[in-house]
């Protein structure tokens, strides 16, 4: 039984097979992502009520929070696929990790900038040295480190394994981002600016937020498949099937 599953995994994860299947899968992620995105934007911008404390500025939440969630989610996906690549030597997993990094970095960047833009009206400063903000910045650097290591090691196999190990080690940062708000408070009494007082969120706010978060996940799925397909083409460039395929393009 286990052998069968293993054989199935091996077959599915063969680059050639993946390339064929992913081509068909992409629209199934892209189209719902687009529709949900439109719906979420509509709900968020037109339907959701004005916040009684923050006024209209809170509408940044529909960008900021999904982006922040994605920045962490993608990192975890990378770590898991890197682990799979390291342990079971599945090349596809390494390619997924490599393809995810730029997307994750972009989302992290987006979370940072939208957070800053939200911070100015809320806290009166674009940037404060709060733990969550800082650890998010560190996350951006972890992404950069991964990409830098990946590109500075010539041999592809070595690069994958080495940078994979790095992501796995860097996972310690994720709980820090998540729990930092509490830890920081216990450390610096009174010094905290970021105390998100969240009166149980209005359902009209919550729905667009969740819709946008889902749209972001689907968007990521579509893009990561596109990127992984490029990786496959490049890395398997000496295989006959890629050559046959490219000749037709």
């Amino acid at each position, binding site marked *: 039984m286990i052998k069968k599953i293993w054989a199935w995994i091996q077959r599915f994860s063969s680059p050639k097979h993946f390339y064929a299947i992913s081509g068909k899968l992409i629209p199934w992620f892209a189209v719902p992502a687009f529709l949900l995105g439109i719906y979420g934007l509509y709900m968020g911008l037109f339907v959701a009520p004005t916040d009684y404390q923050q006024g209209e500025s809170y509408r940044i939440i529909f960008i900021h929070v999904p982006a922040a969630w994605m920045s962490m989610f993608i990192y975890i996906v990378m770590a898991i696929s890197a682990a799979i690549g390291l342990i079971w030597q599945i090349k596809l997993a390494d390619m997924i990790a490599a393809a995810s990094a730029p997307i994750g970095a972009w989302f992290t960047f987006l979370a940072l900038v939208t957070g800053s833009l939200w911070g100015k009206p809320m806290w009166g400063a674009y940037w404060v040295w709060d*733990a969550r903000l*800082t*650890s998010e910045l*560190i996350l951006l*650097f*972890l992404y*950069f*480190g991964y990409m*830098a*290591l990946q590109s*500075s*090691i010539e*041999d592809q196999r*070595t690069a994958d*394994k*080495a*940078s994979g*190990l*790095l992501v796995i*080690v*860097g996972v*310690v*940062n994720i709980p*820090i981002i998540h729990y930092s708000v509490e830890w920081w408070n*216990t*450390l*610096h009494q009174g010094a905290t600016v970021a105390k998100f007082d969240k009166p149980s969120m209005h359902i009209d706010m919550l729905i667009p937020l969740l819709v946008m978060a889902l749209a972001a996940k689907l968007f990521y799925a579509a893009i990561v498949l596109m990127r992984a397909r490029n990786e496959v083409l490049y890395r398997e460039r000496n295989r006959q099937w890629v050559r046959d395929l490219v000749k037709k393009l």
Partner: protein
Amino acid sequence: MLKAFSHLLARDLRLAFRSRHELANPLIFFVLVVSLFPLAVAPSAELLQVMAPGVIWVSALLSVLLSLDRLFKQDYEDGSLDQLMLSPNPLVILVLAKVCAHWLLTGLPLVLVAPLLGMFLYVPDEAIGVLMLSLLLGTPVLSLVGAIGVSLTVAVNRGGVLLSLIVLPLYIPVLIFGANAVDVASDGLSVRGQLLFLGAVLALALSLAPLATAVALRITASR
């Protein structure tokens, strides 16, 4: 196995003592960087006192970072690392020996000289002990985690700054808790929490980092 450990440790120490200036260097760098700050900011006692824990900790971190190169780089370039990897002894033990040597040569001197610098920067007497203790718990973590970074970048030439990009983010929790402990101690409050955290991180690093380093070495040093 214990013998392999102690022999390698001895070799690294001997190598360091052979060029004696080299030995003092991380220490001197530490002292120099710390003393840059009073020069660069207006040197008022209160300001320095507030800055002190941060400055000392950042400088310690940088001087460990700068000395990381000597962990594996040279061994990689001259082929000694190949011989280590071809040793019948477990690579983890050998890695641990090298990290130990590194800490004895860089971390420990920093711990010992920190009180002096603390006094220079007006750290209150009751916080000096905590300063030393936090460094004593923190610097081994810096060496251990740094070893992972070095082993990942050992095959990259001119990897100096790549190394810091990889390693600094991982150092930050140690930095925050270490500096904070001193800060809080200066205000006369209890620092049990911070020190426990540092201790826990040390235990974690001690058990996992050598493994990760050994794995990384086998990956990257294949040329």
